[in-house]
């Protein structure tokens, strides 16, 4: 049955998206590794982790879209799930440093030696093993989202209130992770990573592999989201988004549907965070900042919420714009970002992809009506259900 659900994800445009993502996963690393330096088609070294970062952001935006675009839950705390995934990966990478740190302590990471820790805190146990860290990447954001969502949805906290308490959650976590006594490196976070699974992080091949992994992870999450959205469950999610009370009166357990979407979304966000950290080389409490979480929302909104391609396009576009702006006109980036928020909500409520799709449908309808006026008896195509 699961296979059937997954297969259903592959009809229509989805197969193209997956194909393109896989092509990118192969082409970018290959061009970086095998084309000679200076070749016009070669992706420069510093571009590989940058593009990889965009892909993890795209995954994060996709995760947010699943709850916001399809279930109507505007989470202003998705950065927290991303950061938890990142911290879990960061802890693994810290333990991998071993005795190569500044203080050469074989067990304790540098910051713990610096803060006079005598032994490893209990929650750092097991992070020297990759499989354990990988489980935690999924488990920690998932459990947090499950517990938080279970309380929130059961008491029917909805709309703006939910947005505000998710923001409060990530703000509280931000303050907590800034504390040195938390045992997560405080203000400086975790950094100075050396290698992952034995491969040095600075090496071109490792970076290429991480990029490919990000692209494939994005493709996989796209398939999963697509499957969820196209299943019967996905239809109920849309119903919850559009008329929550009516759905409840029809006999659906709205809370459970929302909880499922929220938890699944948090897990995807956590995986994105785990892929982000080795490519960027640092994770610090700044990732918990409420402003970061709101920025994720704007990626999704720009691309088009309620479509699965939209958030991917939006995240890549906005972040590419950010990289370009902060390089060329650093003081204007906030103007541009702020203007984007205002303009998109006012003029492009469906985002770029939504607007394009709308334009396409309108064009088709025009052609059909033109044909009808010509007297030809072409049957009008049923418009897509969106």
């Amino acid at each position, binding site marked *: 049955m699961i296979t059937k659900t997954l297969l259903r994800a592959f009809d229509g445009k989805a197969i193209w998206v997956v194909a393109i993502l896989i092509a990118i996963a192969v082409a970018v690393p290959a061009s970086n590794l095998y084309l000679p330096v200076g070749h016009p088609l070669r992706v420069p070294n510093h571009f590989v982790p940058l593009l990889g970062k965009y892909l993890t952001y795209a995954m994060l935006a996709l995760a947010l879209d699943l709850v916001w675009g399809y279930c109507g839950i505007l989470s202003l705390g998705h950065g927290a799930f991303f950061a938890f995934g990142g911290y879990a990966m960061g802890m693994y990478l810290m333990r991998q440093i071993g005795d190569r740190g500044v203080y050469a302590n074989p067990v304790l990471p540098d910051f713990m030696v610096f803060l006079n820790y005598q032994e490893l805190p209990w929650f750092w146990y097991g992070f020297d093993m990759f499989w354990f860290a990988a489980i935690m990447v999924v488990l920690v954001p998932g459990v947090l989202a499950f517990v938080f969502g279970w309380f929130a949805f059961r008491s029917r906290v909805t709309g703006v209130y939910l947005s505000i308490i998710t923001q409060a959650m990530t703000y509280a976590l931000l303050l907590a992770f800034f*504390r040195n006594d938390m045992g997560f490196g405080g203000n400086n976070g975790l950094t100075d990573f050396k290698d992952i699974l034995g491969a040095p992080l600075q090496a071109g091949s490792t970076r290429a592999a991480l990029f490919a992994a990000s692209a494939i992870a994005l493709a996989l999450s796209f398939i999963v989201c697509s499957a969820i959205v196209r299943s019967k469950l996905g239809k109920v999610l849309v119903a919850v988004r559009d008329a929550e009370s009516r759905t409840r009166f029809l006999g659906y357990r709205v809370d459970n549907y929302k909880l499922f979407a929220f938890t699944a979304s948090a897990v995807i966000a956590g995986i994105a965070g785990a892929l982000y950290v080795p490519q960027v080389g640092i994770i610090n409490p700044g990732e918990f900042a409420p402003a970061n979480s709101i920025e994720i929302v704007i990626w999704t909104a720009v691309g088009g919420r309620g479509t699965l391609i939209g958030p991917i396009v939006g995240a890549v576009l906005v972040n590419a714009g950010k990289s370009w702006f902060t390089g060329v006109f650093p003081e204007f980036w*906030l103007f541009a970002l702020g203007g984007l928020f205002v303009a998109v909500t006012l003029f492009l409520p469906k985002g770029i992809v939504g607007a394009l799709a709308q334009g396409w449908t309108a064009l088709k309808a025009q052609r059909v009506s033109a044909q009808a006026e010509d007297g030809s008896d072409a049957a009008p195509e049923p418009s897509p259900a969106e």
Partner: protein
Amino acid sequence: MHPTRLISKLLIALALLIAVAPGAFAQDVESLVSALPEGDYSDREKVIFDLAATGDERVAGLLNALGEGDLYVREEDGRVIVGKRSGRNYTLTDALTGEELGTAPSSALEKIRVNNRLRRAVRSAIGQLTLMSPSPSVRLRAARSLLRNADPDSLELLDTALAAETDPQVKTMMETARAGIIVKTDAGIEEKVAAIDLLAARGDREALAMLTGARSSAAPELQPVIERGIAGIERELAMWDGLQNVWYGLSLGSVLLLAAIGLAITFGVMGVINMAHGEIVMLGAYTTFAVQQVIRTSFPGLFDYSLAIALPLAFLVTALVGIAIERGIIRWLYGRPLETLLATWGLSLILQQTVRTIFGPNNREVGNPSWMSGAFDLAGLSITWNRLWIIVFALVVFAVLLAVLNRTPLGLQMRAVTQNRRMASSMGIRTPWVDAMTFGLGSGIAGMAGVALSQIDNVSPNLGQSYIIDSFMVVVFGGVGNLWGTLVGALTLGVANKFLEPYAGAVLAKIFILVFIILFIQRRPRGLFALKGRAVDA
């Protein structure tokens, strides 16, 4: 008997005589000062007493300098001066008048030497000058410094002064100082018990320190008395600490109230999520800065009125900005609260960057007018004027707003539109106009909050961001659409925060509060004072 004590007794007798017949024995101060460097130590001691006997207020400073070893004779003219070392040279001032006399190398000066006996003489002479001064405030200060030093040598001097004292406040202070000295001396048990009781009755930190200091050396039969006194003081101090915490909490609560009250209008009454609210507060603070800049450069005499000028201006500026925001952006987004949230967030980024571009990224200095600086003691509490004024201001704003909502036509229309927009429109209320006015009112109040916050917080482009989450917490906790809820919510959160701080630290206290609010909203999704309604989807 120690010779100094004998001398100081004589001295006091002399001083009393002078008090009876002022000027009778007074020698010329200047000639006494010039006689100071001459002769040996005993001659000098005599001059010191003569100087003290003049009762001249200027002498206290001179004697102080002598005791510190800062008194010199200038070799060229034999003038007595105070020299403070600065680098290689000495900065000179006249010993009596304090007149600046430039600098000189050490070779041009000769130090007026003092030994321990002279130092004691100087100390008692100063004490006599100050403790017997005609001005009660000088006497009070002298008694307080005696309380701190608790020098057993000053006991007799103090007794004499106490006998002559008439001012009750000074007298109490002197008695306490005397008790502090008695505990240290080898006086009789009864006398010591009385002294300890007196100290315990005073009940402040100084008394606690004195008693704790005396505990180690006290006789065994005194121990329980001291223990009891210490326990009593600690109990009283704990109570005052609690009150001080309440005060700090109220102060924080009033700041929260100010920041949140504008939001209570725009979010609570209109249902508009205005994420740019903090930036409007910031605009108010920058208006204050601009007003003060103009006053500093053009009308320095008006500085004490700067806040009174800034308040209406800030209201006007921010209200206009608010109306522009409502007309330009928010009115297109009614009924889509989440989109409003995003658009106003974008607006907040633009406003921040605008202010950063115009005024620069650093903190701007906004001064306190004289009536807002300083502090006063109320019983055991130390209360700063600016905090007090802000509490008063927050309550006044709250009361005015309540009156506007409940007693004016605009308030009536605002409530009507909130409760049933279509019905209100059918009754002839121009709902778009009311929307714009409501938003303008909420923003204007946020701007006035900015004027107040500029007095206690850094005025920087990030000012608003630090308040926005707290403000939302207050409004949501208090209950949306209810001003009283906002008041109770702000004060509760403020006091709770300050009570948690001593146990958990500032950051953990804040985290606890956030977690508490998250859990609280689960229990009561509509806040402390929810509006009752029957609609399924609010």
